[in-house]
């Protein structure tokens, strides 16, 4: 449905060219919810703006529904208003001189030929109903709240039934509670109308909860592209691992391979040993990094009978969070963060035993 090939965008700045997007490829299927996730400055918004036609790419090819909309090498560029898209801006961009109805009706009013008034009216009211704003149709745009502006912006983006919906950090201007609520509404709405959606965000929980697939971007490139579970569970490098959620990163060296894909790792500074699943190519003596999510570590205050994959440590701090507690543990020279059930009673200085399933240890070769 949406296809991006070799997309490159370079800005001329007084300090020399800035490479915002360095040749990225991805495909979004019909009805798919696809997210570009990354820190600010990674090129995700520039990519979205190139797809919208608000920026001209320097190289590559963008096509929407099989139609090429930008291909600099052939001098092809369809301006934004010739692309059948709907877009929600980070600032919502609700026009202050129009009321809610006319903000939403605008895409239909400027269509050529202009649809009959009754039809516009029906479509607008229908869109406003979908976002729960039908009662506000006559309200001036300057008199509605941030969350309401967001809904109006969404209604405006959907009212002309575009082929592609582009969402540029639509939740980032809302406060935390409203953001949560709007995220769920947005997710349900998009799922209901099954529109192909490209979503840009720096918020990992938005990306993981809403998307069919996520592309993690860094420094103008896509670092990893996969389904949310795979991205979270099997990050390809330390950047992805730490950008999505919290991760314990443990440096070590392979001691021996004990099977086809099994091995024993000695953690640096003689902290202890861990059994892990080794990717191919790693041999005894190779340096590596082990990534373990805090919630994958099991902690007990009594020494377990089974001694495999157990590390003994000392509690530094137990942070009670309500349903769970966050526990910082000293294991030799390293500090490990783990999530424990709220029933675990421990105070700083207590001994604690940590265990981790080899399945949950993600291995990157080399360490820093």
């Amino acid at each position, binding site marked *: 449905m949406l296809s991006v090939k070799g997309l490159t965008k370079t800005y001329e700045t007084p300090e020399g060219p800035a490479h915002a997007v360095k040749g990225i490829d991805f495909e979004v299927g019909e009805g798919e919810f696809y997210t570009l996730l990354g820190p600010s400055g990674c090129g995700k918004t520039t990519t979205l703006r190139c797809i*919208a036609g608000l*920026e001209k790419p320097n190289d590559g090819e963008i096509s929407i529904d099989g139609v090429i909309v930008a291909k600099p090498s052939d001098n092809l560029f369809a301006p934004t*208003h010739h692309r059948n898209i709907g877009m929600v801006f980070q600032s919502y961009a609700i*026009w202050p001189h129009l009321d809610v109805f006319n903000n939403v009706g605008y895409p239909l009013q*400027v269509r050529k030929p202009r649809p009959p008034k009754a039809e516009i009216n029906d479509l607008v009211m229908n869109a406003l109903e979908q976002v729960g704003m039908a009662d506000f149709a006559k309200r001036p745009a300057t008199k509605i709240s941030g969350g309401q502006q967001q809904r109006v912006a969404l209604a405006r983006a959907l009212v002309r039934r575009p082929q592609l919906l582009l969402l540029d950090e639509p939740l980032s201007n809302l406060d935390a509670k409203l953001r949560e609520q709007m995220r769920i509404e947005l997710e349900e709405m998009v799922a209901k109308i099954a529109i192909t959606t490209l979503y840009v965000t720096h918020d990992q929980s938005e990306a993981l909860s809403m998307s069919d697939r996520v592309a993690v971007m860094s420094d103008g490139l896509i670092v990893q592209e996969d389904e949310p579970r795979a991205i979270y569970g099997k990050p390809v490098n330390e950047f992805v691992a730490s950008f999505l959620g919290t991760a314990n990163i443990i440096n070590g060296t392979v001691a021996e391979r004990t099977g086809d894909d099994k091995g024993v790792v000695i953690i640096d500074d003689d902290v202890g040993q861990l059994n892990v699943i080794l990717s191919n190519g790693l041999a005894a003596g190779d340096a590596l990094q082990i990534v373990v999510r805090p919630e994958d570590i099991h902690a007990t205050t009594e020494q377990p009978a089974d001694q495999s994959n157990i590390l003994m440590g000392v509690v530094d701090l137990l942070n009670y969070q309500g349903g769970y507690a966050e526990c910082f543990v000293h294991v030799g020279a390293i500090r490990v963060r783990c999530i424990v059930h709220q029933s675990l009673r421990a105070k700083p200085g207590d001994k604690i035993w940590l265990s981790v399933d080899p399945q949950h240890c993600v291995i990157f070769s080399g360490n820093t």
Partner: protein
Amino acid sequence: MAAIAALFSGRRGGDLGLGGILALGTAVVAALYFISAPLLTLVLSSFRGPEDMLPFEDAAVWTLGHFSEVYTNPVLYKEIIPQTFVFAFGAVTFSFIIAFTLAWLVERTDIPGRNFIFTLILFPLLVPTLMLGIAWVFMFGPNAGWINQGIRFIFGVEAGGGPFNIFSMGGLIMTQGAALVPFVFLLLTAALRSMNPSLEEASAASGASPITTFFRVTIPILRPGILAPLILAFLIAMEQFELPLIIGLPARINVFAIRIFFELSPDTDLPVYGRAAALALPFLGIGILLLLAYNHMIKRADSFVTVTGKGYRPERFKLGKWKWPSLIFVGVFLSFAAILPALVLLWTSLFGFNAPSLAALSNISFTPYIELFQEVRFYRAVGNTFVVAGGSAVIVTLIGAMLAWILVRTKMPGRSILDFISFFSIGIPSVIAGLAAMLLYLSTPIGVYGTVWVLILAYSYRFAVTTRLNRAGLMQLHKELEEASYAAGGTWLTTVRRIVLPLMGPSIMASMVLLFIIGFREFTIPLILMSEDNMVLSVILWRLFENLELSKAAAVGVLIIIFVIPIIFLMRQFLLPKTE
């Protein structure tokens, strides 16, 4: 003291301390004095007569005579009011069309040399309008004007005048319009910049073409931001004095500022202070009304500035085949408003007043400059100009900054009145300010009349710009930055000195530079208050022009331009937004 302290109560956090109360109290009193004392004298004077006496002489009495005389005179209704209106309306319309085109070209298109164009457009704002007026007379005088001679030469017309006659309502409107362009341009570029670019992008993403977007989104959103500057420009055009004096008067155009001036300096009789004051009052009233309308518009414009996004600048509009027509438009305006006036003055100062020709080149003469540099009066005028402009800039900026602090950070009762009075100063025409200062200091026996001090006092009433600039600067400073200083044990004065002033540095510098420029180009006030000792450059320029010492007048003009060049750099540093 307790009363003043009570005025500032209601403020959370640190105590002002004695120093703070004194500083703020002085600022309030000074601001009220600089604005209200002259105006009160003006109002009182309009009721004092008879006409051959100073208003507050012992023998003077209360009278309504001035009002009946001024307002029963049909000239007021047949000439002054309609001509002032036609003049102001025409000049604003003309300047808006040019300024909007220029602002749009510089802000939104890929026209080359934007920074250079931006700077040159501001030229008329920096020099006395009188100087431009003289240059334009040299260019468009019906008989000897360069441009007229050039056109007659090209078409082989030997005798007669024309085709342009600058001494006409059309000429006055065009020249005043051009002189107003920089002011309107600055306000319009600010409006263009404050618009969130995603508002236009959202229109494109809705399927609207660029033309549709321009008319259905850009223009309506900018409308309040455009109308507000137009109201202000109208007010300023209405009270203009310089061009009506040099261009309007020979054409027998009688606008109100001129009328007031000639009540004060009639060719034959004694000055009639009361009548001038009576004539001035309704124009102050119109000024207040226009300013109220302006305030209303600005509030609406501000409500239109919605949440801004990441500050993506919109892609500049590609001019393509329109590049050359646009450059020609800009070039013609800049030649008319900046380049040719500078050249015509330079030429006239060196070669006398005749159209340029190769033959004239051999007659180069530096006599006008040599004569100027031999006159004590000239040196004194240069010194006076800088002392008066600099002194009033410092006074007004300091007071304005403190007013801004009171307005933003205290809950002092009556601060909205203070705000309005300070803002109202922008609606006081120079003619009236000069007249009011004259009446006040003629009647007060403190011996400043006729000195440079009276000029500094008279100039120091323009609190509007500096208060607004500093207020905007302060609002961006989070209150906690000050509270942190109190929490660290700083007194109010320490906090202001170590935290507030340094952080407000940019807006304070900006208002200082701006006020210096305003003072540097001032002509009307020093003309009204002129004595042998307190002449400034613009007044010297006028006297030379009036005496038809044209080369010397031109030489003064050239020297003014030379003085202005460093100011341009200061201004680029502190005043102008950086264009990328």
